[in-house]
């Protein structure tokens, strides 16, 4: 029996429990990818219900269907052009007004729709009672109350979906009525638009033209430029009447409608004492208390991940390296054996000892914090500080992650709204000294020069980050960064959703990064087998020896460091044998070497993450830039320190 198919798109504001509903619907049959050509995540899944195979698409969480962000553009293109069979609009029961504003816009797209009023339990706690039947009457589409976290209403949603698909339930969506001045003008424009060339409904095009939506204007201009100029004229008339731009007037009036509906269907009885979540909010955003709370939670998270990562990484590495004899038995110790073990397997081990011990817990905590609502409070507290380097509060999170490992840091930049902010934050993240870099700093400079110098290097690194962040912020074109963020009520995260999100993102990373890591380690192994390491070290010697004043052999260590940063130190130790660092290098050399190793390149896993998020070109650009930067600073440091050494003869 072949199953009939249909597609459902989930749409709604951020923080309404959309991903929980998505997970409740699709279970393990999910696929996380990107929207074509965009760095926006696309989550798809399938489920089987009453003889149907239902594809579910989780659209990004947005507040409007204008073109402020790529997410909004993607969502409306998808709904208008791809025409899913049904849209489920998920609405937060406790913030009805703003959620209904979005619902009204979806209705204007004239797509078959169901409204799910979610988080009914939280609304109840806040003393909000909702008459969902009344809402159904007012909107003209089915309305289903849900509590996604406990699965309430999910079955009803599916049942209703099938009813609509089978045509058993007819829907007559109500259209939002604007004021007289606007309605007249919408009609005029819609009259001109009524042609089959438009993929959008005529009324919607008319509204968007009056709102001076750039995308719709462009598309309309290609069909008939007269419509655009007529609309422009009409929009200016409205501006004259109201004293605000036409787009502001339309947004205002749409909100009026949403507000009226909300007032009609909800009854609010304020609870006598503020709920627990309110008190936690007040504490965690408190002028004084908020910061220590943040510091303690961030540090303890950080510390526990570090301990966990260190232990698991070592354990994983040891057990995987234990396989070496078995591999050598299978493939021999000749060229094939060397390639299989030293190239492929060591690559896999390298990837696995980063991905599982560090990325997995980082992701888990990131989603956990995001889901609970604490992330937005941290952003609130840190906004001013992050502004100093041209970012806003939300960027604090990925940067903090970067101190553990740059990879989750780069991937965590997704929480920023625009591509520009993401790129800026990721750039800063790649400069953050990760755990492996810390090992180099402490293991070389800290152990053999002095702990003060190790700390100084750390501080220098932070200063560089600060300075370059500002510079990149000035250099990159685009909208300035500003924090406009909802701080939705604290809630208990849905553990299953968090686990699934973590798991699917980890898999996505593994698929992207492992091939690159394996190829990288194969290439280096081949170079080693062909005995090209020495010649390459010699070719690099103008840079390493003449410019940086380092032993030629460090060139090889730095090449290996691309695979994993701590390899720079391990390789160096191996290459220098039987001498130890103190015998082979002067303190100045150690400091210069560490400075270069700290900055010179994001490791290959980080490059993979950059490629994944921003494409080859930008990843390449960042990598080359950082190599040049490290060399420049290393050379300068060498000269400065040499002068100082001549003067004092001791470091």
């Amino acid at each position, binding site marked *: 029996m072949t199953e009939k198919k249909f597609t459902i798109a989930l749409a709604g504001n951020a923080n309404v429990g959309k991903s929980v509903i998505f997970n409740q619907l699709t279970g393990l049959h999910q696929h996380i990818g990107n929207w074509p050509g965009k760095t926006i995540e696309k989550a798809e899944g399938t489920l089987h219900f009453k003889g149907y195979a239902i594809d579910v698409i989780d659209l990004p969480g947005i*507040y*409007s269907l*204008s073109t*402020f962000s790529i997410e909004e553009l993607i969502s409306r293109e998808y709904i208008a052009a791809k025409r899913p069979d049904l849209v489920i609009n998920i609405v937060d029961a*406790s*913030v*009805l*007004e*703003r959620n209904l*504003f979005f619902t009204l816009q979806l209705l204007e797209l004239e797509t078959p729709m169901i409204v799910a009023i979610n988080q009914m339990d939280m609304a109840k706690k806040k003393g909000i009672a909702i008459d969902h039947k009344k809402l159904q009457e007012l909107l003209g589409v089915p309305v289903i109350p849900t509590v996604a976290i406990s699965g309430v209403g999910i079955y009803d949603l599916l049942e209703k979906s099938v009813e609509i698909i089978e045509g058993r339930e007819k829907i007559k969506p109500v259209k939002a009525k604007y004021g007289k001045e606007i309605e007249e003008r919408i009609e005029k424009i819609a009259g001109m638009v009524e042609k089959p060339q438009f993929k959008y409904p005529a009324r919607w095009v008319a509204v968007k033209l009056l709102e*001076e939506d*750039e995308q719709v*204007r462009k598309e309309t201009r290609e069909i008939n430029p007269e419509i655009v100029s007529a609309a422009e004229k009409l929009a200016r008339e409205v501006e004259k009447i109201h004293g*605000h*731009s036409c*787009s*502001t007037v339309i*947004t*205002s009036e749409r*909100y009026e409608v949403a*507000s009226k509906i*909300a007032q009609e269907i909800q009854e609010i009885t304020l609870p006598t004492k503020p709920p627990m979540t309110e008190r936690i*909010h007040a504490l965690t*955003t408190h*002028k*004084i208390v908020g910061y220590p709370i943040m510091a303690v939670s961030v540090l303890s998270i950080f510390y526990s991940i570090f301990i966990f990562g260190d232990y698991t990484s070592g354990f994983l590495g040891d057990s995987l390296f234990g396989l070496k004899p078995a591999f050598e038995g299978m493939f021999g110790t000749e060229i094939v054996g060397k390639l299989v073990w030293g190239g492929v397997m060591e690559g896999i081990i390298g990837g696995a000892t980063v991905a599982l011990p560090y990325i997995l817990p980082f992701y888990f905590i990131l989603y956990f914090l995001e889901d609970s609502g604490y992330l*937005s409070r941290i*952003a*609130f*507290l840190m*906004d*001013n*500080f992050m*502004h100093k380097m041209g970012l*806003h*509060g939300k960027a604090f999170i990925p940067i903090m992650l970067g101190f553990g490992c740059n990879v989750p840091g780069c991937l965590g930049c997704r929480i920023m709204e625009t591509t520009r902010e993401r790129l800026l934050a990721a750039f800063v993240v790649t400069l953050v000294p990760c755990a492996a870099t810390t090992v180099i700093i402490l293991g070389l400079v800290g152990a053999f020069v002095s702990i003060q110098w190790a700390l100084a290097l750390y501080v220098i690194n932070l200063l560089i980050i600060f300075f370059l962040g500002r510079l990149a912020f000035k250099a990159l074109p685009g*909208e*300035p*960064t*500003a*924090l*406009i*963020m*909802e*701080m*939705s*009520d604290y809630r208990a995260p849905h553990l299953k959703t968090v686990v699934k999100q973590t798991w699917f993102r980890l898999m996505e990373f593994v698929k992207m990064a492992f091939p690159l890591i394996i190829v990288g380690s194969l290439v280096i192994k081949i170079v080693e087998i062909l005995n090209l390491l020495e010649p390459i070290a010699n070719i690099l010697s103008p840079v390493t020896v003449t410019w940086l004043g380092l032993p030629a052999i460090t060139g090889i260590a730095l090449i290996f460091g691309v695979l994993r940063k701590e390899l720079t130190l391990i390789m160096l130790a191996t290459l220098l044998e039987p001498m130890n660092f103190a015998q082979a290098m002067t303190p100045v050399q150690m400091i210069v070497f560490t400075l270069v190793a700290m900055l010179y390149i994001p490791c290959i896993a980080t490059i993979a993450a950059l490629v994944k998020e921003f494409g080859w070109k930008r990843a390449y650009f960042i990598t080359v830039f950082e190599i040049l930067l490290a060399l420049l600073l290393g050379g300068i440091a060498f000269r400065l320190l040499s002068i100082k050494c001549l003067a004092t003869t001791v470091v």
Partner: protein
Amino acid sequence: MELHLTELRDGEKGIITSIKASHGRGHGGWRAGRGWGLKKRLEDMGLTPGTKIAVVKSAPFRGPLEVYVRGSRLAIGRGMAERILVEVNR
């Protein structure tokens, strides 16, 4: 009287009169003014003229403002909040 949102005291309420785009919109649509996208964003989040707004508090060191609008809590960066004009009864 009309004030910038940032001039309100903690806990004070007002009614939004307008939001200034940083460089004016000018000709050539929304790309002409750098702040226009952000203005649109604020309006889409419910900060339209005539809306009641309450400042709950602001983060220290000239940090963002916590405001209450249309039944939800928002954080707005100080630079952005400066462009929001509010009518207040004092």
